[in-house]
């Protein structure tokens, strides 16, 4: 392992451990991530979309554009492989 990868890894690991002490503890229920929009998703989901599964309603409705982008990512991967590895027997 060359020395510069060792330095990069040490810095990276150190930065992560240094930063993670400030992240909310998993037991503390008043963490910003839980009280801000997450609670609104849970309370509003059934009134807005009649879908019990909150993840699906957030995925397809509240943040539906993310999923459109995601589907385009898959399509890009498909087209990319068609471009990189063309099949011989294509008639067109």
């Amino acid at each position: 392992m060359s020395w510069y990868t060792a330095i990069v890894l040490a810095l990276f690991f150190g930065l992560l451990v240094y930063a993670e002490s400030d992240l909310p503890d998993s037991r503390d229920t008043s963490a910003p991530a839980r009280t801000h929009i997450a609670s609104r998703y849970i309370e509003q989901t059934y009134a807005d979309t009649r879908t019990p599964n909150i993840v699906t309603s957030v995925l397809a409705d509240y943040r539906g554009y993310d999923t459109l982008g995601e589907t385009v990512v898959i399509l890009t991967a498909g087209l990319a492989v068609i471009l990189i590895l063309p099949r011989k027997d294509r008639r067109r």
Partner: protein
Amino acid sequence: MRERLENPVVEGVSKFLVPFMQIFALYVITHGHYGPGGGFQGGVILAASMMLLRLSLGEEYEHRRFSPTAATFVAAVGILIYALAGLVPMAFGGRFLDYAYLPIPGLSSAELRYHGILIVESGVGLVVWGTLVTLFDHLLGSEA
């Protein structure tokens, strides 16, 4: 592995198994509203069933039933369904991807969104199914 396996046990089992896999895949796509599931997971199971057929029954036979160009076609149709579910509400006064403005009569805005999610999930299922089969065919099938 791409020729026919000539092994009656493998062929028999896979022929028997595939229909159930595909029905279960449709269940997973539509069950996304009530439990873990949705377009991605269902599409992957659909693609897996196709791959099982391709591996066991050989490529020539399978490509006549579901050819790589058809897979790309399915993927493009799926993403167009998703894009239309976004564009149609724009034509009816809503914003992009605002299912409450879908022109389905007789439904409240919440039920419209419920069906909008279903349309979108089926579009995603088609894209994942078509693309993964294309990936499989091109990764395996392309010669130097």
